[in-house]
């Protein structure tokens, strides 16, 4: 069944870990009483859930960067758009529990003196509609952007900088209060999802499981692409695009398909991220964010997929740890990590094990 994992030790380990975690974490959180040494706190569950969403995002980036050679500095935008779609659904679930008690309008719209929910918010009170949008909006953006860029053969550094311009423009746009997405404050103060309170432990565990499942599925899907014939062509495009074109492949179509799929994955990751951290705001569009997530992949190791997951976990864990333990030095540590990894571990941590394997 999991033919795509053949020979992918990292992927096997990842899926194994994920399935263990999916069983173990809920039990340790919900069954084992608080105070017991084995109890997993809700804080940790949420944190792990967040990392899983990031890991999915990293996998999406690795697919386009590691395998297709497109360094996207705008994947944060797709992530954020997915997040906003989810946030809009959650926002409309608040109903009349907002501070002004207005049953129809979210608080920030009351505050802007709006009389009704604008057209682009229509339908977001329906969970499934919102979920479709989670995939559709980032996918569509990636499709349009990619169609333009790949046809005119914008490549390499230029493409990276264009994706950066894209996310930067979106950030500026979402900062505007007139846009109708809550401006700088973004969307927050969510209450419940599908009728379940976001504050309850069981919902958090459920979100954790959903994130783990999404990561597993996303990973398998990417892996399936990579090992397929299509995947071979994709790698060929990365290595010598012109030759692939001369052979007769429609390079721009293939690139577009992969890029769009990756954006959809990023959107889904964003949708999982938002209910767990409880806020989505334009900061997610910040170009620095997108660079950061590229760095996760670089540190984990490109073109391995599981390396991306590893990188996402390690960087984010050290961020969580260092911002608590040694707040003054964490930027130094992070910066040094980036430099050292690019200098001495060009294939990331995953490359480390590969190299050793090869040597052995």
């Amino acid at each position, binding site marked *: 069944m999991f033919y795509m994992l053949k020979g992918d030790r990292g992927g096997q380990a990842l899926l194994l870990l994920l399935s263990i975690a999916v069983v173990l974490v809920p039990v340790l959180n919900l069954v084992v009483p608080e105070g017991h040494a084995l109890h997993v706190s809700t804080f940790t569950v949420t944190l792990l859930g967040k990392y899983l969403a990031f890991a999915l995002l990293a996998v999406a980036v690795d697919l386009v960067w590691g395998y297709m050679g497109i*360094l996207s500095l705008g994947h944060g935008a797709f992530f954020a758009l997915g997040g906003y779609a989810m946030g809009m659904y959650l926002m409309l679930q608040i109903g009349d529990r907002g501070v002004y008690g207005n049953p129809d309008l979210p608080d920030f719209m009351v505050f802007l003196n709006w009389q009704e929910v604008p057209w682009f918010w229509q339908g977001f009170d329906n969970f499934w509609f919102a979920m479709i949008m989670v995939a559709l909006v980032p996918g569509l953006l990636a499709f349009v*952007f990619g169609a*333009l*860029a790949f*046809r*005119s*053969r*914008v*490549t*390499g*550094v*230029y493409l*990276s*900088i*264009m994706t*950066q*311009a*894209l996310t*930067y*423009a979106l950030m*500026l*746009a979402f*900062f*505007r209060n007139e846009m109708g997405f809550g401006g700088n404050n973004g969307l927050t103060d969510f209450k419940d999802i599908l009728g379940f309170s976001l504050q309850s432990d069981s919902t958090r565990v459920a979100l954790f499981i959903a994130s783990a499942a999404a990561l597993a599925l996303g990973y398998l899907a990417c892996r399936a692409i990579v090992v397929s014939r299509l995947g071979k062509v994709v790698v060929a495009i990365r290595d010598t695009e012109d030759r692939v074109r001369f052979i007769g492949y429609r390079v721009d179509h293939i690139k577009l398909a992969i890029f769009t799929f990756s954006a959809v994955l990023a959107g889904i990751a964003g949708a999982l991220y938002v209910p767990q951290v409880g806020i989505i705001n334009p900061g997610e569009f910040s*170009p*620095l964010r997108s*660079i950061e997530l*590229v*760095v996760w992949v*670089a540190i984990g190791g490109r073109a391995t997929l599981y390396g991306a997951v590893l990188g996402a976990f390690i960087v984010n864990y050290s961020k969580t740890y260092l911002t608590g333990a040694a707040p*003054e*030095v964490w*930027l*130094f540590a*992070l*910066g*040094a*990590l*980036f*430099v050292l*990894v*690019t*200098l001495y571990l*060009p294939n990331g941590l995953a490359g480390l094990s590969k190299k050793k394997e090869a040597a052995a």
Partner: protein
Amino acid sequence: MLSFVTKNRFLPVWLLGLCLLPALASATPPVGSDAFAQAVERLQVKSYKEREAAVAALISSQDERVKPVLEAMLNARLFYTKKDKITVIGIKTKDGFSITGVLDQKSLGNASKSQLKKIKVNNKLRRILRAGIAALTLSDPAPEVRLSAVKQMYGKLGNAGIQILTTHFETETDSKVREEIQTLLHIHDLSSDDRNTVLKAVAALSKSLHPEVRNKLELLKDSTDQEISAASGDALKHIQEQLAFYAKVKTAFFGLSLGSVLVLAAIGLAITFGVMGVINMAHGELIMLGAYTTYVIQQLMPQYIGMSLLVAIPAAFLVSGAVGILIERLVIRHLYGRPLETLLATFGISLILQQTVRTIFSPLNRSVETPQWMSGFLEINPALSLTYNRLYIILFCLLVFAVLFLVIKKTSLGLSVRAVSQNRAMARAMGIRASRVDALTFGLGSGIAGIAGVALSQITNVGPNMGQDYIIDSFMVVVFGGVGNLWGTLIGGFSLGIANKFMEPWAGAVLAKILVLVFIILFIQKRPRGLFPQKGRVN
């Protein structure tokens, strides 16, 4: 504030003083030093309103000691001693103030800060003081001083002030000052009851772009007198046309100035990224280092703020250049041929540089002073004035560009740089030490970034995050202009700046910027190598 005295509760008081000023209404004999001494003592009161009255009394005392007192007060140098309540003028010294009594004008030695109490002024008092000083300055021998004194009196004239000006007008010899006074008097005539006077004034002012003229004409347009209404309507129309024209000129200037900032920020990157292909995410931080260098230089030579900026230019070049060379030697050297990875490594370096600066200088912004010669504006006419700092920055930008251009085109270093960037292997075969050239090129680009930092320190914050504000814009400019082409960066930067500024009035600042970004994205799809693609480059 228009000149109608009655509308303002406080104006009459000082105007009373103003019209009695000795230098101007020369006939009146001095009232004597008692009045002066009393007024000076009254300055020590707590309430601002009473102090306003005291200032008016001071002016009307017609004592020749008034002007220095007013000036000291305006510059927050007027104190009274806590012990004896003597009003003094204090000049700041190393550890306190050297004080001089106001009445006897004798030095009273030194006093510490705690022994003195400042005689406080607020905005309204400052306004009164300035007008008072201006009136006293009308007799100054230097025509420029008189001119600025007259200009100070715009909008602050009452009937009394008119008399002073009329009297002064007769003795005034300088044509510019006369012209200015004439305008002022005509503006005053606009609100006259006599319709002929009004008509004459309207005719005389029909070319004046002074905002007060416009305001008054707006009022007159609705006048019941047909002739006045028609005349002022015509004048107004003409003025408005003029203003619309100058508004366009002004916007163009704003655009050029924004463009020059963009070019300055990007031009270093045009070298490191454009010529060498290094995606230097730490470019913004190199700009920041230049700005901090300016700050440090100013700290080192606090007496010579004007000079400090000139010293800072080479210093910033050296500091940022040295850091650049260091980065190149330690990191980038190992990453040639992997452009996307330099992005990651330099991003890490940018984080480290930011945090370093934060650790050394604290996360707070640093204050970089603007030297005298860079503040203020060049007034071309009342509707168009160009700020000096922007003017200098535009010139500076062009200068930096020219120098850089010459270095690349005319020096042997420039030749090597171009050779290495065009064909590395061939260049090495010709005996060029490619790795040395790499280091120098990167140093050059970084040094230019440092110089940009000096200029930016004059218009914006100097803080650890300042680099990040410019990094994306810089990349946009370089890519838009065409990688590897200095002209492209120059023209790209200026056109983006101007486009931005012309869109701003109707789109707003944010939307204008978004539109520019979207435009660049679309433009690059059309011309993937920018405005001026580098020809014949081996990919």
